């Protein structure tokens, strides 16, 4: 309950601070609230709370773990990006919208009712449509927001249609009732059609192929701090909610969709990694890389049994690496440019930033001592024996991914200085992220 209250009131409190001209307190208040939520998950650990006894939300172990992970990512995002957000001069609006979307992200992890699921998805997405277009003077940002809004609302409509069909079959929004109904009638076509439509809606939200077309344009067009938020916290929340729904409530009907999900994972990995190798703009390249990671995230649903550990570890490890790399792109993009040649000789200008960027990229590529390797390892070992062909595709496409990640690292270390000046920015947060990437595997048993 306390977690819910803090996250719901945070946005309102931030707006109130703007009214009283206390802008300097916004970032501390947000960080404090995130810490409060984190403390709340620790306090509630081991206790399942059915909030208000309404069978709407259940704070169970899965929900608490997911909330802790999303809060860690959100705090890290805030620590990294707060100067960039404040530099826009519209800190209050942007922070408030971020806080609202964070509230939606938390709701995505603990619903036990379809009504809550739909509300959570909308609270998560509606602020994002605005945030994607928040750089109002920029035509590309406007286009990104508009595109995201149009396609996102169609996806929400499809999802809602799916929920309506399942309601039509089971006469209930309650996930426990739906779970028992599907267990008893696993070939009810109304339920299966509804599940398929919900799958489509979610696949759009996590940008899995063939519903990924919006992602590169929106990720590239949105202001980089927002892209970082969308690629990590939002995508993580969407996949965690999807996991809760499909591996939990829909588990008996999932067999029907396993083949479709496996093909979606395959398409996502092949298309996204293939397209990423062709990009000259590093931000767009990372957008495609983000789509390819959605393939790994989606694959976690195929792991038999309700074993959420691989998914959560992947969300955390990919999230930290992604936040770091988007932060570096933000500072390089602001001072030099987003094209690949902007990174030429970055190691000479700032060995520190180049090292952190390399660490983040190598982690996303899955190089052994780093967190990203363990993330991929858990997913692949979970699928081994069940979807061996899929694991082979995962490993092959990871090799392709290595190529475009190394292209950036090569530009930073191997090319000559392009003569622009470069300042590091937020050093301590970058160091923190780098340490997290190296040390995260030690925590993998905890998650």
């Amino acid at each position, binding site marked *: 309950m306390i977690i819910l209250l803090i996250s719901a009131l945070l*946005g309102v409190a931030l707006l109130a601070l703007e009214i009283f001209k206390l802008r300097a307190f916004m970032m501390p208040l947000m960080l404090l609230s995130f810490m409060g939520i984190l403390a709340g998950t620790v306090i509630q650990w081991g206790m399942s709370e059915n909030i208000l006894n309404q069978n*709407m939300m259940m704070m169970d172990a899965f929900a608490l773990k997911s909330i802790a992970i999303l809060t860690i990512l959100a705090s890290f995002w805030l620590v990294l990006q707060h100067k960039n957000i404040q530099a826009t001069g519209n800190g209050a609006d942007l922070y408030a919208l971020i806080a609202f979307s964070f*509230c939606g992200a938390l709701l995505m992890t603990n619903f036990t009712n379809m009504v809550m699921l739909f509300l959570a998805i909308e*609270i998560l997405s509606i602020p994002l449509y605005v945030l994607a277009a928040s750089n109002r003077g920029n035509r590309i940002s406007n286009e990104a927001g508009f595109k995201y809004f149009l396609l996102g609302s169609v996806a929400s409509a499809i999802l809602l249609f799916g929920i309506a069909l399942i309601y039509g079959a089971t006469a209930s929004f309650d996930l426990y009732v739906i779970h028992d109904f599907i267990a008893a009638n696993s070939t009810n076509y109304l339920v299966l059609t509804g599940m398929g439509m919900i799958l489509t809606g979610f696949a759009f939200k996590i940008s899995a192929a063939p519903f990924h077309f919006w992602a590169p344009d929106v990720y590239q067009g949105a*202001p980089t701090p927002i892209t970082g938020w969308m690629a990590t916290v939002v995508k993580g929340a969407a996949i965690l909610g999807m996991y809760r729904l499909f591996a939990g409530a829909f588990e008996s009907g999932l067999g029907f969709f396993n083949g479709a999900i496996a093909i979606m994972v395959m398409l996502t990995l092949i298309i996204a990694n293939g397209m990423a190798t062709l990009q000259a703009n590093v931000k767009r390249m990372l957008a495609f890389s983000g789509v390819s990671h959605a393939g790994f995230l989606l694959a976690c649903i195929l792991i038999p049994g309700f074993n959420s550990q691989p998914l959560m570890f992947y969300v955390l490890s990919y999230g930290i690496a992604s936040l770091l790399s988007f932060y570096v792109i933000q500072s390089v993009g602001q001072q030099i440019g987003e094209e690949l040649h902007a990174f030429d000789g970055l190691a000479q200008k700032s060995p520190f930033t180049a090292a952190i960027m390399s660490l983040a990229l190598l982690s996303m590529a899955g190089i052994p001592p780093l967190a990203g390797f363990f993330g991929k390892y858990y997913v692949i070992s979970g699928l081994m024996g069940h979807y061996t062909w899929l694991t082979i595709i995962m490993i092959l496409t990871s090799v392709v991914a290595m190529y475009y990640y190394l292209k950036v690292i090569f530009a930073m270390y191997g090319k000559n200085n392009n003569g622009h000046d470069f300042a590091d920015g937020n050093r301590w947060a970058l160091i923190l992220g780098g340490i997290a990437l190296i040390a995260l595997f030690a925590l993998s048993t905890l998650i």
Partner: protein
Amino acid sequence: MLTEYAFWLLSFIAVFSGIATIISKNPVYSVLYLILTFFSIAGHYFLMNAQFLAAVHIIVYAGAIMVLFLYVIMMLNLNQLEVEKRSNILKMLAVASAGLLLVILSGAAHTADALHVNPNKVSPAGMVEDLGIALYRNYLLPFELASILFLAAMVGAVYLSKKNLNETQA
């Protein structure tokens, strides 16, 4: 007896203004006829004891959405009707899809069981009181969260349309 007269009167108005919406040449008249249609449909809801639905229908459709329509028509100055030239293929497709819809609707009307409702027994579902109890008791959490959703949407709309925005953005 009185309700039966009311039913026929409202049905006549609804069908008449519905047709008039389509055939009137001036878009503003069209919108006004549509508002009349909404009012007569709201009257039907009253007859079926769905008071809340009737009120919401008038407030939301006749009040908000139609005013928006009118506003857009007047803003864009669409008073003169411009008949677009449409290709024959498009017309044929439109006829075909409308015909399909007719087939589906008549098929559904044939096979579906009519809901047997006793008109003398007042159903509680449409009353404001029962709706309020459902909303504030069983669905309190979603209700409160919907307000967060609207707040977020409002903040977003204000942000996107604010004038004195600091445009030196990253």
